[in-house]
């Protein structure tokens, strides 16, 4: 399809190589396995595949067709047109990782700005060039903490209020570290307990890392200052998982003196895209810059003294350090980090606050309206940002099926991860939800009212 060789050219090239036909190039391949029949459908032209994919896409009901109140780690935000206009440019799209700084200053400076924006937004000193997503960034934080103590501290305390997928991912990543104990994420207790209460007492001299989320999986905000102090008093590190879009309005996790801040940058201008690619945020205090996972871009000068950017501290990485690297990550999510950089720049100080405010205000309006429906209550039990728990009179599944008939994509069924949270739904509201949509949601829920 995309091969430019004419028959004549192919012949001429084979002659230069000194073989007769293409098949001759594959003599090293065991003959009995050579040239298998692949069971693939016949090739389509561009016109045909465009048609087929239009149909597949059309078979979905997306958040363009439905009023979306689903969040739980992926959020429906407005992405300004300029974001895609920039990341579609072939210069960004079709470049490799910027190993050659002389011909990669575009990518390098953009990542440097990404690092700067993330550091400032999270209130941390240093951000890496990105990780795969929020879940894997959390897992890498655990790996980093473990290595920080050279394996001498083996306990990881992880709040149950951390996103279930993230907690599962941490466990998967750490299964080879047989000495590590992961505790704290008991989902059978009272899910609404504050991690400040549940975790602080468990921090001890064997604790490498305490992981909490802010706003937490339920959308709630806690002041972690004291918990962080308690951890530091025991010599443990603290990692805060955050939602960067909230940080336009609420205190940065850096202000709680966190050592590591991770999170998913999807809300920063990345389309939902059925779950990926998203953006793993990974920021640390200065002290841990040499322990950080993934790439870092640093400022320097060229031979003529001109400012220039280059990948730096590469001795941490797998291609130099191999099995002793701080992480195995190589390809990260550069283009998505760029998208978020453009997004953060476009919105800037004013817009980032505005979007966060809209999320906050609309969520609180929705919560209040829903709370006024007999049979429903908002049971978050703490201040929240743009997600809240609704206790429902019947199963979330039943409610969501009903909402779908009203073209509403309902909330997340918390009983999936927290068995005690039966009939509890996590609703997310963003700037994309008009008051009309919220009112329509409330009206649809009223049909379940036990009035």
């Amino acid at each position, binding site marked *: 399809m*995309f091969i430019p060789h004419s028959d004549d050219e192919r012949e001429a090239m084979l002659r*230069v190589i*000194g073989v007769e036909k293409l098949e001759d*190039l594959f003599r*090293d*391949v065991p003959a009995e*396995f050579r*040239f*298998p029949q*692949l069971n693939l459908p016949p*090739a389509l*032209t*561009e016109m045909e595949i*465009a048609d087929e*994919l239009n149909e597949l*896409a059309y078979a*979905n009901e*997306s958040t363009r067709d439905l009023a*979306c109140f689903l969040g739980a780690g992926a959020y429906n935000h407005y992405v300004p047109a300029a974001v895609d206009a920039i990341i579609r440019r072939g210069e*960004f*799209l*079709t470049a490799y990782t910027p190993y*050659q700084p*002389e011909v*990669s*200053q575009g990518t390098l*400076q*953009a*990542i440097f700005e990404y690092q*700067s*924006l993330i550091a400032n937004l999270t*209130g941390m000193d*240093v*951000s890496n060039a*990105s990780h*795969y997503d929020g879940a894997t960034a959390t897992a890498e934080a655990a790996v980093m903490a473990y290595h920080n103590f050279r394996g001498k501290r083996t306990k990881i305390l992880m709040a149950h209020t951390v996103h279930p997928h*993230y907690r599962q991912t941490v466990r998967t990543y750490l299964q*080879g570290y047989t000495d590590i104990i992961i505790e704290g994420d008991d989902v059978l207790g009272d899910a609404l307990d504050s991690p400040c209460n549940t975790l602080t007492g468990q921090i001890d001299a064997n604790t490498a890392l305490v992981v909490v989320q802010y706003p937490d999986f339920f959308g709630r*905000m806690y002041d972690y200052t004291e918990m962080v102090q308690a951890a530091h008093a025991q010599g443990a590190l603290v990692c805060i998982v955050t939602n960067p879009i909230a940080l*336009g309005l609420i205190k940065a996790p*850096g202000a709680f003196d966190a050592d590591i801040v991770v999170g998913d940058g999807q809300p920063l201008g990345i389309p939902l895209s059925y*779950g990926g690619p998203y953006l793993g945020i990974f920021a640390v205090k200065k002290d841990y810059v040499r322990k950080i996972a993934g790439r870092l871009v640093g*400022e*320097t000068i060229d031979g*003529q003294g*001109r400012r220039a950017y280059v990948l*730096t501290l590469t001795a941490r990485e797998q291609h130099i350090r191999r*099995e002793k690297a701080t992480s195995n*990550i*190589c390809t990260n*999510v*550069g283009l998505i980090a760029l998208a978020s950089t453009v997004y953060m*720049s*476009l919105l800037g100080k004013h*817009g*980032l606050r505005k979007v966060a405010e*809209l999320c906050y*205000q609309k969520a609180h*309006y929705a919560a209040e309206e829903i709370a006024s429906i007999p049979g429903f209550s908002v049971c978050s039990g703490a201040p929240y940002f743009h997600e809240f728990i609704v206790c429902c009179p019947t199963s979330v599944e039943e409610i*969501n099926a009903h909402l779908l008939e009203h073209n509403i994509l309902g909330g997340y069924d918390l009983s999936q991860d927290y068995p005690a949270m039966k009939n509890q739904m996590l609703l997310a509201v963003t700037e994309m939800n008009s008051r009309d949509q919220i009112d329509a949601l409330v009206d649809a829920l009223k049909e379940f009212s036990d009035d």
Partner: protein
Amino acid sequence: MTELTIYEISSPGRVGVRFPEPDVPLSPLPEEFVREDLPMPEVSELDVVRHFTNLSVLNYSIDRGYYPLGSCTMKYNPKINEDMARLPGFAFSHPLQPVDTVQGNLALMYTLQEWLGAISGFPAVSLQPAAGAHGELVGILIIRAYHLDRGDTGRTRIIVPDSAHGTNPASSAIAGYEVVNVKTNADGNVDLDSLRAVCDSSTAGLMLTNPNTLGLFDCNVREVIEIVHAAGGLVYGDGANLNALLGIVRPGDVGFDVMHFNLHKTFSTPHGGGGPGSGPVGVAAHLADFLPDPVVTILEPGTATEAPLYGFAHPAKTIGRIKAFHGHFGMFVRAFTYIAMNGAEGMRKIAEHAVLNANYLMARLKDTYHVPYDRICMHEFVMEGHYDYAPDVRALDIAKRLMDYNFHPPTNYFPLIVHEALMIEPTETENKQTLDRFADTLIQIAEEARTDPDLLKTAPHITPIGRVDEVKAAKDLVLCCWMPDTL
């Protein structure tokens, strides 16, 4: 010209994209959570567009020129891929929607799993891993889970050839394994004696890249696999070089137990200046139960008139979840588009022409540059970047000098086992004219090294910046263009 940073062009009070005022009654945010300062830039939309457009042109890219970066498969990324991934039905669907509202997505993912299986010979595929290295970790964890499931707890080591990519040992280490190196022999294959010597009951597995990073197909691949299998280990295939094998040989047929794909190499999804990638993992039948949670499956079979109902399944002995949600869906759409446009015949043509191009370039260059393993190569080859007659000139200098001729340099100093390595992967989408210009240029540079070596030592000359001070970067560690006062 250096570009100012986004913070340097910021001006207090300037506003970019605006958002509406709240249409709901206001609730106050509790005082204790109110953020005081927000040290983010203040710029206009024009500022932003101009800034990033001007940054973009400082980059080299496939869309602007030849990018023969070994091990990276910098082939043409079809523009249709981009349009398809942005179809609203795909781009705006939420990962946690009820499955009956996203049958289009699931059908696409299921089909892609099947297609990758058909291409590789592995009966089960997980699309979840986010990149090659992530796929490696998953694969090694699967190997680990397999042994443990059989009660085989003594296997603590993974064998990795000395030519392997750095992610191979790093992934093994993260999975808790000790890494044992094995040598490459004079032909560029795994040294069988060395392999035999390290294989024993502590061997969990071997990570094999085939074609390896020398661009050579290991002719002993079956023996290698047999030796490891005989010791009770499993064999992991690093699929970064799969472009050479499409329709030529299926790793699953040869006896690999598990392998990752790089959709961002073989299947034309763009590399994006460093990702996002996508690194699905295929496994042989005995490992299917260990795949990451979840995989896409058919919940209710279709009929003559109705499509099946697709949904998620949870493999019985899964290693667990390896990231949030279900993998890099946007990349699946692109890879799906690409595979659909090529079909079985197209797959084989890709490999054939990738290999043709590499051998052609090698043939054109081997009189001028030393090619340490002189045999038919696969999709890439490695030569030595130095000249007897110009001892000061290094591979790095040749790489930089190529920039002056508007070529992206090959990968250099990898694999580690070749002296002053220049690793050249032409890809199948480049035409003979381009290859000839590239070969002519490398031959001319060899001549320049004779007559005017300084031209190489001081290269590049026409790029936006010259060679950079890497020591200063690591020493001064300026990693952020504006530190907020509050810290």
